[in-house]
């Protein structure tokens, strides 16, 4: 279910990689096959660090998402990500152009991950996921990044 209700014009450049002391390093990948390869690499290399995977749609011309909800989410990310204390990776996964995303056979939809709408962000290996209206809620996005453990201790 893909929401297309937002009419926000984002002027924030989602390509913005922030100042060098940002603890979450951003990486980019495009398409399902590349994602499969990349996530395996990242998991092997980052056993002690948090991996966030953000599924979005990149417009490929002006560097901004074709999806208005992703643009809203990108604004929140720009505020929240620089302040995240734990070291880790934020992997942006481009799910494709709008027409490709809209098909039911898009591999991101059919894969085990079952990404049914964008923006969706997951913390790999934790079961934490935000999407739809939750992803537009600053308080929940902050909780998502700042909550380091679902378990006491």
């Amino acid at each position, binding site marked *: 279910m893909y929401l297309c209700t937002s009419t926000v014009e984002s002027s924030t450049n989602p390509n913005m990689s922030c100042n060098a002391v940002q603890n979450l390093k951003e990486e980019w990948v495009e398409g399902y096959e590349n994602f499969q390869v990349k996530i395996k690499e990242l998991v092997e290399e980052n056993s002690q660090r948090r991996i966030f995977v953000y599924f979005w749609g990149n417009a490929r011309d002006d560097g901004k998402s074709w999806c208005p909800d992703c643009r809203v989410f990108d604004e929140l990310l720009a505020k929240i990500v620089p302040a995240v204390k734990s070291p880790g990776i934020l992997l942006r996964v481009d799910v494709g152009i709008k027409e490709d995303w809209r098909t039911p056979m898009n591999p991101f939809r059919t894969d085990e991950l079952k990404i049914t709408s964008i923006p969706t962000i997951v913390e790999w290996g934790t*079961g*934490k*996921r935000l999407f739809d209206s939750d992803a537009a*809620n600053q308080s*929940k996005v902050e*909780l998502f990044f700042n909550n380091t453990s*679902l*378990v*006491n201790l």
Partner: protein
Amino acid sequence: MAPITPKGPNEYDFIVVGGGSGGLAASKEAARLGKKVALFDYVKPSPKGTTWGIGGTCVNVGCIPKKLMHQGALLGQALEDARHFGWEFPEEKSHNWGFMVQVISDYIKSLNWGYRVALRDSGVAYLNEFAEFIDKNTIKTFDKKGTEKTYVADTILIAVGGRPKYPNIPGAREFGVTSDDIFTLPYHPGKTLCIGASYIALETAGFLAGTGIETTVMVRSILLRGFDNQLAEMVGEHMQEHGVRFLRGWVPTSVKLIEEGKDGIAPRLLVTAKQSDGDQTWEEEFNTVVFAIGRDPCTPDLKLENAGVQLSPTTGKVITDDADKTNVGNIYCVGDTAENRPELTPVAILAGRLLARRLYAGRKTLTDYDLVPTTVFTPMEYGCIGLSEEKAIAKYGKDNIEVYHSHFQALEHALPKRDQNRCYAKLLCVKSEKERVVGLHYFGPNAGEVTQGFTMGFKFGATKEDFDELIGVHPTTARNMTELEITKSSGANPMKKGCCG
């Protein structure tokens, strides 16, 4: 009208201690009704070191993983049945315990996360801190780093649930595990001994055996105390027929370590036992010993004496009235911690929600703790509503109770030729009240689903005639509830012959 002083940062209208079924329901409802609410949840690790996230026993180490593992075991049985319906697959089946543990654990973590997000939505302040009472309006808390804080509230709800008991024998805590640990056991359990006759012991033994694990149950006396004796024995017999070994009339005396487990392999343990009524002793080696001998309320650590809250001297649970209030006017208790309540999630949820409505929405509805339906998810499931036959006879007198009953076979079992006449249904009816049904007992597949529907009849005081006038859905096993003719008093054989009889 006096102006309301706004509350300071650590001051709340309503504090809930315990983030399980009861606590979550009450806190969310109170927040929905506009109150300033704080929820405290903190899980002290089990002796084995197991801990978990928000949601309480049900979500983390109870109903949810139990039902999933039970389903895992049933699917193993389904694979066996499948060949009788024409499915052809060459390999013998095998079960990967580690895989099942991982996927269930992942699912539970997504539930923990879901609750965190839902609490954000609801406006409840969630604090991962362990709370104890200073006085009737004040609690002191500790977080995992040991930092202390104080909070004040007008009203406080205790909903801290319980934890498994250990017997007072050498080696129990060091080498045994409980339901707190079994769902995330980091090694294949190997040859397992379940000690206890509770539904926890039987359900655990059931799903372990169903995934191919060599399982034994050690029982001191009767099975499923508090449930209908006849059905309890049927549950046990069925489990025995399906490969679970029962040691009836024994109690454990010690658990010793033979060899430590390592690298994902289970330890080797020696269990010694003696007869409950006799002198014989016994010992045998196992890899895993699961104690399921009962649960203790989490009241000792709360320092309830500082608030003057009265506990039961026998159970340690909090004594409450019909409105879930303790002897202290502003302190309430729901869920497993409260005395004389069915220890069931839906009961705690409803109690929590109705309490919040009574406190903050001017409602008067009390939780009805009678006629609570429940189901035991053993390999053949047992669902019941109302009284056991023993309790019905005690309450109404033997001459005033008519028992209608029947054995039957589920159609699905006909082709695999299993459990013929194993399934069973009975209705307990009060003769002097037009045969009003006061107990319903169903032993068969999908017992939870079957039982839930019939609770509606109980709500309206259904009689045997009402049940008989229902038109059944066919083919189902639930339909048997509408066709019971044979009474125990007639002495006739309750075994079924044909299909539509």
